[in-house]
């Protein structure tokens, strides 16, 4: 198992993900945990989020990203879990766990993977605000080609 993406409506256990990637030859595990904040990027008070995903395509995109990370940084094992459904402040939305022999590879691959996932994975987030409003929020983008 060299790469794994889980899209799940259940709470994510980062330790379980780390257990999947760890082996006796791995000296380093770098884990990123994305948590639901109480405040949006533009300063609105957030009460909850909803995520949805196009799961089959997300899995393919993740496989590509993991391949790129290994080609760039070196041998490592990468696992990702992303929540879908309704989340509250403090809930874990996403976890990226990377195990490698040495820590530079683990850090670099972990960061590359979360950055690329945020840009490219077909996953969407709706923020629900304390004032009753809600909005689909897009990540600040790299390349974005319109469809029509």
């Amino acid at each position, binding site marked *: 198992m060299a790469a794994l993406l889980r899209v799940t409506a259940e709470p994510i256990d980062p330790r379980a993900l780390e257990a999947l990637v760890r082996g006796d030859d791995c000296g380093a595990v770098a884990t990123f945990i*994305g948590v639901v904040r109480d405040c949006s990027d533009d300063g609105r008070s957030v009460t909850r989020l909803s*995520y*949805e*995903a*196009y799961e*089959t*395509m*997300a899995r*393919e995109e993740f496989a590509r990203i993991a391949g790129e990370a290994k080609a760039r940084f070196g041998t490592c094992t990468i696992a990702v879990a*992303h929540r879908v459904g309704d989340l509250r402040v403090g809930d874990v*939305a*996403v976890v990226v766990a990377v195990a490698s022999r040495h820590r530079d590879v683990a850090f670099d691959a972990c960061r590359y993977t*979360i950055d690329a*996932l*945020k*840009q*490219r*994975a*077909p*996953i*969407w*987030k*709706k923020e629900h605000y304390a004032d009753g409003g809600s909005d*689909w*929020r*897009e*990540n600040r*983008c790299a390349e*974005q*080609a*319109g*469809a*029509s």
Partner: protein
Amino acid sequence: MRVLAFARLRELLGGGEVHVAIADGSTVADLVRQLAGHRAEHTAALSASRVARNGRLAGLDEVLGEDDEIALLPPVGGG
């Protein structure tokens, strides 16, 4: 044909899976125009989105087959 719609487009089109009758030889661009149907909000949301065909991003001039899985992908917000 079967079209998957996500996020804002799911809400606008009234469901995560919509069924659309298309003419033989229709392209991705034809499908997008048909889905927009001269409605300003739909047109804006679709023009900000990308289209995937069988799990890969599709060009506007690709010709659709009845069995393709088409997905409408607004700007992503995961993580």
